[in-house]
């Protein structure tokens, strides 16, 4: 479903993404681990189209997308949630989801009336809200919503497009322990045929969700394997010295 070959990005003498390659099958859940500065968010920027690679190729569902614009890739089924909340702050939760759903459903024409009341939009808003746990918070204005709810909405907007591939950049970043459980459930409840690539620092979540794990260091893929293999790898231990003590 998602195929990355030889992806490379350098800014002058600084190489941020070094010959990264991997393949994801449909429905696969993969977590990207790596210390800060390893180039994880840069990888996402390259995949989404916010950054153009210096070399390499990206294929989405068999189709080459390297060089296509951000919005083109989104229309082809790629969606993304951000590490820093990227919402429509002046609107309510419902309006955020309705805007996203309407955009995804193609209801952006001049002769589409009252798109936020369109049954297809209303249905999808209810569905997404249920999936991310915001069903009882729909009329809350985003700017006064608690941080945890905003993270949920962040994922919700990305899901509204019913994507084929979802990139999640640290979904639980800054979220308190009470909410982390909600995110475990959220991830568990996502459609099984949705291919998900997650950047995470929360190890419990990572091992719980992942089918496979890719570890990046200095922009390079240094390890790829199942959670058990990752746990047992001395190389990974070395990179994460200290953080792993509790999990080994």
């Amino acid at each position, binding site marked *: 479903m998602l195929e990355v070959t030889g992806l490379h990005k350098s800014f002058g003498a600084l190489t941020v993404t070094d010959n990264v390659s991997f393949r994801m099958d449909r429905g696969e859940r993969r977590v990207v681990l790596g210390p800060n500065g390893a180039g994880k968010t840069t990888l996402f920027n390259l995949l989404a189209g916010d950054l153009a690679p210096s070399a390499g190729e990206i294929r989405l569902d068999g189709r080459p997308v390297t060089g296509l614009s951000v919005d083109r890739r989104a229309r082809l089924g790629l969606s993304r949630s951000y590490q820093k909340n990227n919402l*429509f702050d002046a609107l309510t939760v419902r309006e955020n989801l309705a805007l996203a759903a309407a955009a995804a459903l193609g209801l*952006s*024409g001049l002769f589409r009336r009252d*798109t936020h009341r369109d049954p297809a939009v209303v249905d999808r808003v209810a569905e997404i809200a249920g999936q991310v746990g915001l069903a009882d918070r729909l009329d809350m204005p985003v700017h006064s919503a608690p941080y945890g709810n905003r993270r949920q909405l962040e994922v919700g907007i990305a899901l509204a497009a019913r994507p084929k591939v979802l990139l999640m950049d640290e979904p639980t970043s800054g979220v308190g322990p009470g909410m982390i459980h909600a995110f475990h459930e959220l991830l568990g409840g996502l459609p099984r045929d949705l291919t998900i690539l997650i950047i995470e620092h929360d190890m419990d979540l990572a091992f719980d969700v992942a089918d496979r794990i890719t570890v990046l260091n200095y922009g390079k893929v240094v390890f790829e394997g199942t959670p058990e293999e990752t746990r047992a790898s001395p190389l990974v231990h070395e990179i994460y010295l200290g953080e792993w003590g509790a999990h080994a």
Partner: protein
Amino acid sequence: MFHQTGIKTAVILALLAGLAAYAALGGYFARELVIEIATLAILAISLDMVAGFGGMVSLCHGSIFGLGAYGFAVAATLLGLPPGLALVAGIALGALFGGAVGAVTSRARGIFFIMATLAFGQMVYVLIFDARALGGDDGLPGVPRLDLSALGVDLQSSLQFALFAIACLGLVYALAAFVLRSGFGRTLCGIHANEARMRALGIPVWQYKANGFALSGAMAGFAGALAAQHTMFVSPEMMVWTVSGEALVIVILGGMGTLVGPAVGAALLILLRHEIASLTNHWHMVIGIVLIVTVLAGGRGLYGQLEHMVQARRERVKAHA
């Protein structure tokens, strides 16, 4: 997001009725003022559409207004087209230029965008000013008015032209409201709120910006054609950069992002100018001070402040319920 609320409907209808009454009961001069208010209000509404709702603050709308006027004038006088077709020409020219500006500037942010629109507006002014074939800085006289005799309307009568202009204002407002309430309009507002996210949701942003600007340009061009019919004469003065500035002042004075505010602002500014003109020659200074004071006072504009207070009261009532 745009919602046609009760207060908006009330105020715009009151404004239209007030203008009609003033035109019917006042003398010739009152009608002249009403026509000026109506044409400027249409221009201001078109600007509010892209600036207040689309987040694209343009300083070239005066030039689009002028292009509409010239398009109509040239088509009607130099090309000999019937006024109805000439009107279409004026509107089309406004739409084309607006769409081009919207497309070219779609990647420019904030201050760069404003500066670019100022520059392109000036380009149009210089081109028209230098065009000997279009009369240069002497302009083109003999511009006709539409022939609505089939509807029993004689636009040569100043009262009927004034009422016609008011009707056009109502029509343009309804059209703008239609656009803003559509899927297209909501997408445009979404782009204003968070452009990057809209792109990530699959929206080809530059197309929406270009189309929004084209629609706005069509309306501004229509305002220009109307103004051309009023004075029956066009000159490059109609598209000098200060016209774009005045349009922006009107929008801010009335309330940007309210759609009704600009119309209110137009009425206020024209009446203010009429009063001040009898006192002093220095209108530019007054308009500059008005703008500065409005911005320093919070920038909501007169109608905008009213709407805000009504909304706040409604929210307090809801909270207590």
